[in-house]
């Protein structure tokens, strides 16, 4: 059981390294999903918003990590 837990943790770690970064990505996808559910904006606008949001998250987390000693 502990081996399974260790393997799951290792697998999780390969997709998620910085928890804040992963959480921000998941939140933004959820927000875009909610917008799609509510039919807010056009289908192309929502897709572009998904990309812009993810690019901003990438830039913000890179700068934050570079500042931390």
């Amino acid at each position: 059981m502990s081996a399974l837990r260790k393997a799951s943790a290792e697998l999780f770690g390969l997709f998620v390294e910085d928890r804040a970064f992963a959480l921000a990505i998941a939140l933004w996808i959820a927000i875009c999903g909610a917008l799609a559910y509510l039919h807010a904006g056009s289908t192309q606008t929502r897709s572009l918003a998904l990309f812009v949001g993810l690019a901003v998250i990438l830039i913000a987390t890179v700068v934050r990590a570079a500042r931390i000693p």
Partner: protein
Amino acid sequence: MTAILSTALPAFLASLVEFVEALTIVLAVGATRGWRSAWIGTLSGAALLALAVAAFGPLLRSVPLGALQLVVGILVLFFGLRWLRKAILRYAGAIALHDEAKIFARREAELRAGARGGSTDWPAIVTAFNAVVLEGLEVIFIVIAVGATAGALVPAALGAALAGVIVVAAGVGLRRPLARVPENTLKFAVGIMLSAFGTFWTGEGLGGTWPGADFALPALIGGYGIAAAFALALARRAARGREIANRA
């Protein structure tokens, strides 16, 4: 002859786009995580598709492609953005570019662990597998859509098969040149590509559309390239500021 060309050619061209998309991911996985994982993922995906076609045939049209795109897209997105972030931080000097002693110690530990229970690179296999299944399903839909409406499934399937052969040959040819690219450069480029593919599929999985359909992918790759270059410039400045503060 005209009927054959009118089904084989559209099936060939549309399938070529899908095969190239799958090849991009498989090459990215192979060049950065090892060709063994890329092959296992690709062959498992192809085998699953072949079995699915043999067992269900045209019934495959009822597979919920949107849901599949969403799951695969999110997985590829997490994988790609994580790599891209790390590659940018390495270039900026915020984390070590290469530490041979640490790498040697880790590899040694991995080999020891491998001797005990096998060291399968599951994320790499799953990424290649997902790409092959997703794009392969799209090729099947194309063949069914083009071939079934014109009553010419065989020419449509032959057109798609020819596209597959050409793309696989191109992939084999690209293996060696890729091996000469420095590791962090490769991870930077692969991170950009995986992030673009992940965003594309996640957007489609959420019911969205992209301007220019599949041709939005190069634009997304360019967009992530610009974002990565901008992040790199800011990170370099931040890392320099940190160094100066540490010295003071």
